């Protein structure tokens, strides 16, 4: 049995490329109007709950300010990102990967055990007993796969006026278009935070082996 199934590996790398393009083109789009609002509307600084910094060229796609080109990249990459997410969820449910490996069990929700898990992580001790993932990994992967990544798709659709005619309830579900836009921004930084921690932990836990296994599948 492989440590990572083929569907996981293909999705992982396709998704990585998509997320990088979406994040960097998204920062360029953010530069077009750097204020975030709650509710349905908002168009002036005094209505904003947050003024976002201007993101420098090296962090954006393209590397100069172009709302039109950034939207082209964002709109194109949204397709493989969303279809990939759908594919990954179907694969995870069919193979029972989610149920078996990512779902938390009731006895894992135990303060002493969670505290011990955190202490072991801080001591850079990544060996854990039975099961593929420990509690913190399950929470992190569950949050990213279940909430942050799909959340980007749904908030993105809610921002789109053409899609609104197909699903007006989606805008309401987020409490208005500007709320959906704010959540879109916050979730993108949630994904960035996951990315930083994920890469740091891979680097600390044998990066060559980890990378090789995410390509070849590895052995369990």
């Amino acid at each position: 049995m492989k440590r990572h199934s083929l569907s996981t590996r293909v999705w992982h790398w396709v998704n990585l490329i998509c997320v990088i393009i979406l994040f960097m083109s998204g920062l360029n789009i953010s530069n077009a109007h750097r204020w975030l609002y709650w509710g349905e509307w908002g168009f002036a600084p005094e209505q904003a709950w947050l003024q976002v910094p201007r993101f420098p060229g090296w962090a954006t796609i393209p590397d100069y300010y172009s709302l039109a080109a950034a939207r082209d990249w964002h709109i194109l990459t949204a397709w493989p990102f969303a279809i990939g997410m759908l594919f990954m969820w179907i694969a995870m449910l069919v193979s029972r990967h989610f149920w078996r490996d990512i779902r938390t069990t009731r006895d894992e929700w135990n303060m002493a055990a969670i505290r011990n898990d955190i202490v072991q992580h801080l001591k850079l001790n990544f060996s854990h007993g039975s099961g593929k993932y420990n509690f913190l990994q399950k929470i992190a992967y569950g949050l990213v796969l279940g909430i942050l990544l799909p959340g980007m798709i749904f908030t993105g659709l809610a921002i789109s006026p053409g899609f609104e005619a197909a699903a007006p309830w989606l805008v309401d579900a987020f409490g208005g278009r500007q709320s959906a836009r704010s959540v879109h921004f916050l979730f993108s930084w949630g994904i960035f935070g996951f990315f930083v921690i994920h890469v740091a932990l891979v680097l600390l836990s044998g990066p060559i082996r980890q990378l090789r296994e995410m390509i070849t599948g590895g052995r369990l």
Partner: protein
Amino acid sequence: MKRRAVMAGIGAMFVGACSKIADSKVGSSLLGAAEDWHRKAHRALSDRTALVNEYAKADISPYFRGNGSTSVDTDAYRMHAANGFADWRLEVRGLVRNPLSLSMENIRKLPQRTQITRHDCVEGWSAIGEWTGPQLSTILDAAVMDPAARFVVFRCADNLNGADYYESIDLVDAMHPQTIIAHLLNGDDLPEKNGAPLRMRIERQLGYKHPKYLTAIEVVSTLDGIGEGKGGYWEDRADYQWYAGI
């Protein structure tokens, strides 16, 4: 500082690759095609008359932001404004059996639709206002379109950075119930910054598709030869998406 330099280096390499892709023939056609896939998906998922949200009076923004052109800098426009746009005409021409030239009085006497909708700018902000005016479909039905008609082009009085503003939509959006020619905002004549005396409302698309200072509606079979051929001022000038439903 060193780590940041490395990050910036990797970022620059990636961005460099992206701009190479964008400049290549396949890359740029792919980037352009994605817009069509979204339009087709939106149209497939909803009825052609499906409406966007309409709001209550209490939801209306305290004022309605003006963006892009906020006035028209010509003597003719100043004279129209000085006499309350009493002599403003809206022409309906192109591939129609009955070309029309409508006065403001004609437009006010047509059946009216009032809708409280949200205006979404491509930049990201939104404002809510109540718009009143006749549906474009009423006028197009009166003019009787030729079977070859495929697009509706909107001609405007404003000139932005040296080019005349114009926009275009296909017939699905032209015949949509919420596509109206607004002459009232929140019950009053349109303010100058919002397009006095007439502006389009094309509610399933972003703000740059809603041209202001409307002078003519042209029914055409192709967008070639109009402006630079990309279907609108921002499309020509900065390669904005022609389908702005995303």
